[in-house]
């Protein structure tokens, strides 16, 4: 257990360093963009104003309010100070709304859309991949090119195609929004039904692409395992086929599980296309809105959430592997 503790501490150290560096980058990167958020806000609120001094006064007031008139290092320490208190600051664009409120309102949608989509895509994909590896022949011959084609489709291409076919031409599914345009959220079956119907297209646009990639990966892994020596040996020993296959797929799943964990960590970035094309609310559209208006606190806030999610996920995986996979342990004790 001592080796594991050392391994754990070392990993923890590097994760801490990574977190610090990521926080600094999250702060600095948006602020390197060549724009002036105050100018945009001033432009918007002074629309139609004819007095130039009045405009200047409003500009200065915002600069003071948002602290952009301070030197960068000072802004950074204020940011860190607030962050430690759990305060991600106030959005520029949606002033006086808090970044945490905006993120909280949109993260729910992203998770509600992405988590099931990733899980379903992962399950179907792995099932198909495993079947292809096990059955081979015709099924395999058809599955490989189809999966390759689908996983090669650009995400927006698939989303637009779905939109045009099912939304615009066939009119089977609504094309935008999270629920019907003539409803207010309420706890009624009609509302729930409306939510489900609006959920379909963004959901499948993510699932389909995930299926392709997962199926290919699972197929290769399974074939490797099926041809591994231990399988031949077991078969030679007369172990039941079902049992062997069970082992094979459990082993083949391991890397796939890692992939799943990571894709859950990165799902927020992946949500962008589906969200924009189907007008589905969520973090993807929030961060794009933040970038176009140079809303530094909002961008930093969203990237921070992503950073923390990915870090936590990959930390968990590495810890888990440290426990269950003897090979990792061996490598670490070198």
């Amino acid at each position: 257990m001592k080796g594991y503790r050392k391994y754990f501490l070392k990993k923890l150290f590097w994760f801490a360093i990574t977190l610090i560096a990521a926080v600094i980058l999250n702060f600095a990167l948006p602020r390197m963009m060549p724009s002036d958020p105050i100018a945009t806000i001033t432009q918007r609120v002074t629309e139609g104003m004819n007095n130039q001094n009045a405009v200047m006064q409003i500009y200065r007031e915002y600069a003071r309010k948002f602290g952009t008139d301070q030197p960068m290092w000072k802004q950074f320490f204020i940011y860190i100070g607030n962050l430690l208190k759990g305060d991600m600051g106030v959005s520029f664009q949606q002033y006086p709304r808090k970044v945490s409120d905006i993120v909280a309102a949109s993260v729910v949608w992203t998770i509600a859309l992405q988590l099931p989509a990733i899980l379903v895509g992962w399950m179907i994909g792995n099932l198909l991949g495993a079947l292809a590896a096990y059955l081979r022949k015709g099924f395999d011959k058809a599955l490989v090119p189809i999966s390759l084609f689908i996983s090669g489709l650009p995400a927006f291409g698939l989303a637009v195609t779905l939109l045009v076919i099912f939304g615009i031409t066939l009119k089977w599914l609504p094309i935008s929004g999270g629920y019907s345009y003539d409803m207010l959220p309420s706890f009624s079956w009609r509302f729930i039904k409306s939510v489900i119907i609006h959920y379909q297209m963004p959901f499948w646009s993510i699932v389909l692409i995930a299926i392709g990639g997962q199926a290919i990966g699972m197929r290769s892994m399974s074939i490797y395992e099926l041809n591994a020596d231990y399988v031949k040996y077991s078969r030679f020993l007369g172990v039941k086929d079902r049992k062997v296959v069970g082992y094979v797929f459990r082993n083949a799943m391991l890397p796939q599980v890692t992939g799943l964990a990571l894709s859950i960590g990165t799902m927020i970035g992946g949500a962008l296309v589906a969200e924009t094309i189907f007008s589905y609310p969520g973090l993807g559209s929030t961060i794009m809105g933040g970038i176009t208006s140079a809303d530094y606190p909002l961008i930093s806030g969203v990237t921070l959430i992503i950073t923390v999610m990915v870090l936590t996920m990959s930390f968990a995986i590495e810890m888990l592997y440290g426990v269950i996979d003897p090979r990792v342990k061996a490598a670490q004790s070198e």
Partner: protein
Amino acid sequence: MTRKLCALALSLAMLLSLAGVAGADIPSELPRNETLYFAGQQWGAVLSWNIFGANQNNSLVIGGGAASRVIYFETLYMWNDLDGQLYPLLAQGEPVWNDEGTEITVKINPAAHFNNGEPVTANDVVAVWDAHVKYQTGTGVNGSTYISAVEAIDDGTVVFKAVLNDEGKPINPLELPNQICQLRITSAAWIAALDEKAGGDQDAFKNDPAYDIVASGPYAGSYYTDETKIVLERDDNYWGVALWGKLPAPKYLAHIFYADNAAGRAALEAGEVDVSQQFNSDVEKMWLEKGLPISTYIDEPPYQLGLVQPSAIYNLNIPVLNELAVRKAIAIAVDYDQINANAMTHQSATFEQVPRSLFNTTEGQQAAYDHDAVKDLQWAGKDIEGAKALLDEAGIVDSDGDGWREYNGEKITLNAVCPNGWSDWQASMEVVAATGKEIGVEITTFYPEAAEFYAVFQNPDQTQYAIYMQSIGGSGPTYPWNSIRQAMSGEFVGQQNNGSGNWGQYVNPHVDEIIAAIPQTSDEAELKALYTEAVQIYLTDIPSFQLMYRPSLFHTVNESVWTNYPEQGDEYGYPPNDLTDGYGVGALYELELVNP
């Protein structure tokens, strides 16, 4: 089973995230034939209802320019874009100047009352103004340059006093009616309560979301809003029945926050939107090819009422653009028909229909100047040979044979800039860039994000952007004078954060004299001469040039549910302001159901 559970969890999560702000008893399903749906006015969640705030992002409620949005809050007067007149709303009768021309008296309609039943009085107007000034809002800071005080004579009479110049005249008499018709009225009692709550703190006062604000408009009954939509309910006790003779037809006004133009357009085609304030490219295909019951204010191109002029501004900090020949060559070589056909998809009047001046397409503004006197200066565009000749004559030629002309021995390279995502503007810049190629001047397009765009061009010393787009002109009591000011006024030269006008730093003292003279001139002939001269100078010096005409509000309607929308030449004469702004709000009262 899992699916059902998932769905349940999902809906629950959404309900939680959509902790909306609701007034009272809006039903959870809006009856379709009692609701009028909008698109293109509001993007993203509503932040505040506070008329003194600076960032409400609540444009269905707080929006519009001189033609203010008057469905929730009301103003004293309504501006009519079509005839350029003010119509009384909370006021009664015309605004009256005193004999010295130093103050305006406005009578308040005695019938007017707020949604809480309290009457609208002169004190409310005074309180609103004083709060704007005290808390240094945009309206207060800007408006007090022109208005020194607002005083109540009695409950029904209020006086706006002008700031006077050395000669004892208002520094700008056009600005008084302009300020008055944009002043949204709430109650003095509500202001006093907020004042007390904020304890004199400016930020606390302005940042209060004001969910309980008092208003007098027809849809100030009740409201609902969350991350995805806003719904306004009609106040069935609305005082304006006395003014209009009836209540507006729809019981609810609703606006879904679409993610982008494409989503809003799809909703319009599906009949989920009744009134669209979006630029819908190829709008005529909706009825010609798809046979949808969709129409615009005008049946033929340009379909919309052109009120502003998106223009290409020359940055005169760049030496080569100080050459008149270069400015003129580019301006006359641009293919405006291509811009109209491909960028605006024919939703702009052509420069043949409305020759370029500085003014918008309305009759009132077109009558401001002498058309014959500037005829020889107006150009139609696509004059490649003429442009080449101009450049050759000025000695700006291609001497090294690479196909591009040089200026002072260096290849001319200009950029054509507008914000990213403003599709019709971007497409126009593409056409301008294509022009450059034909006359041997390299022009490349550049689309920074809006935030970056404003930061750069509002700096008076910038040399990053050579040719960039801004809108000139508009509609309101200060126009068409303000168009000249925006295009050429010296007051903006060298100003930091200048979003108001003359971004290209054009200097001409004589124009400044004209700009100073027009507001003080009342003689018609004299005015016309001044306007004509300004246009002549503008078309001669070309500090910028118009690319197209564009409406200030796009107005496209779907008649699946409602009909009798305003159309050109109808019996009502309401301007196409999406039924929400200024005098255009009157159209709400004339709506009828297609299937009653």
